[in-house]
């Protein structure tokens, strides 16, 4: 048991922290741009390609996870806690996949061009329908707030385990290398 894995793989940790930075930036841009006049265009121009980048990364991350061994939960976590932790991971993966897809879909339904950079753009994935756009636009907002709440819960749980329970939960995903003790 000396080789017991204590951390997620290097690739998983890189993907986690890269996406954490991207998703937080994305949530900030999203909530700021809808309230902005002067910066609206600049923020939307970042929001679109960044969202698509997140969509691509979450697929890579999900596939990679299927082929990776995960470190065990600390012994301090009860089976209920493990269930909640697992469910929150499923929720986060789902939101990170569905939110950009809804964004792409709503732009398609509104018949906006889905410009990434310069002449580079994506094809529409839904037919032109403003009613569908209106529904997806609302959905996009609701899911974004849900993602923010899920992030807060995730962040709070990690802080609680690290500072109060002190069971080394954070070291599983720490960006630096933590050796098994």
């Amino acid at each position: 048991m000396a080789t017991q894995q204590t951390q997620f793989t290097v690739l998983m940790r890189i993907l986690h922290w890269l996406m954490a930075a991207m998703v937080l930036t994305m949530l900030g841009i999203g909530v700021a741009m809808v309230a902005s006049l002067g910066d609206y265009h600049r923020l939307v121009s970042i929001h679109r390609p960044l969202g698509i980048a997140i969509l691509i990364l979450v697929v890579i991350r999900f596939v990679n996870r299927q082929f990776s061994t995960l470190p065990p939960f600390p012994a301090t976590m009860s089976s209920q806690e493990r269930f909640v932790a697992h469910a929150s991971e499923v929720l986060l993966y789902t939101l990170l996949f569905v939110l950009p897809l809804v964004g792409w879909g709503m732009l398609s339904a509104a018949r906006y061009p889905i410009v990434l950079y310069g002449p580079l753009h994506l094809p529409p994935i839904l037919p032109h329908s403003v009613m569908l756009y209106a529904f997806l636009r609302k959905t996009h907002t609701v899911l974004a707030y849900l993602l923010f709440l899920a992030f807060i819960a995730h962040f709070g749980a990690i802080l609680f385990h690290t500072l109060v329970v002190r069971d080394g939960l954070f070291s599983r995903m720490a960006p630096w290398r933590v050796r098994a003790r």
Partner: protein
Amino acid sequence: MPSDSTASAEKQPAALSRGSTLRRLVGIGVVILCVAGGFLYLGGWFSPNALTPARFVDAFERADGVYSGFRRNHAKGVGVSGYFESNGEGARLSKAVVFRPGRVAVIGRFSFGGGDPNVADAPTMVRGLGLLFWLPGGEEWRTAMINLPVFPFQTPQAFYDNLVASQPDPKTGKPDPDKMAAFAASHPATVRALGIIQSHAPSSGFDNTAFNSLNAFRFIDAAGKSIPVRWTLAPVQPFAAASTAATAQTDKNYMFDALIASILQHPLQWHLIITIGQPGDPTNDATVAWPDGREQVDVGTLTLDHIESEETSPARDINFDPLVLPSGMAPSDDPLLSARSAIYSQSFTRRAGEAKTPSAISPTEVRK
């Protein structure tokens, strides 16, 4: 598993005192509140008086009312389609594919300014033309132009303040002249722009109207060189001044009807004229015209040969967002541009989800 039990024994930290646990929990709570507060701050929750797209569209709704399914401004309109034939002259100004020689399909929408979709046609009202150019390779160019030679407002805030100042007084049903005067006194740029606007007599109909980009944009050529530009659609149809006599028109849609009759008779054409700004020409102030004598390039001809009611036209469900630009065109530093994009989007989102009500220019109106 002896090694395992040793590991967990080693990991077991000394128990926290109750006070220490409490302090750490409070600390976590503060961190979480700061993150959530930062998020709400970015979303403008702590600046309830800041001008946002939603508050701007609210002002349009207060001024003109809400008409289900219609644009909050430029509500009355009709759909058109046709094509743009580039002569290739624009290719040296911008690498945008629309300027390569050849023909691209266009859809568009003629409109009157204001939020009332049933307003009676009048030559003094602002005329709009929104266009969407379908470019090869899937790019698009959208532009929303009006017939005014300059725009009356320098900033989004000035536009908003004017909307608020010119709101009808509930008692008189007319705007409060004191508020209007106060607005004019504090906005000399608007007064100057209105002077320019009033010196241009409106034409008799949509077909002989010149439409202007108003805002400056930037064109970027193949070498990456950027130049400031404005553009105008100059009608091929000869100018005729609108009748100044206050004749009561029995047909509320007489200007749209004239446009329909005209387009059914022969395709309507406009030259797309690009005006190139010189260093020092303001690009961030749509209230000011550029000096005469600037280089102008005729880059091609727009032909509109089909007209239909909004009820059947795809133009109804298009947002003519002036910042949907192909590669080779970019916004200038004019603060109105990003604001227009944001506000059009807000108006589009609101009307998208509403039940669509019949347009004043009905399918029968177009066929008669």
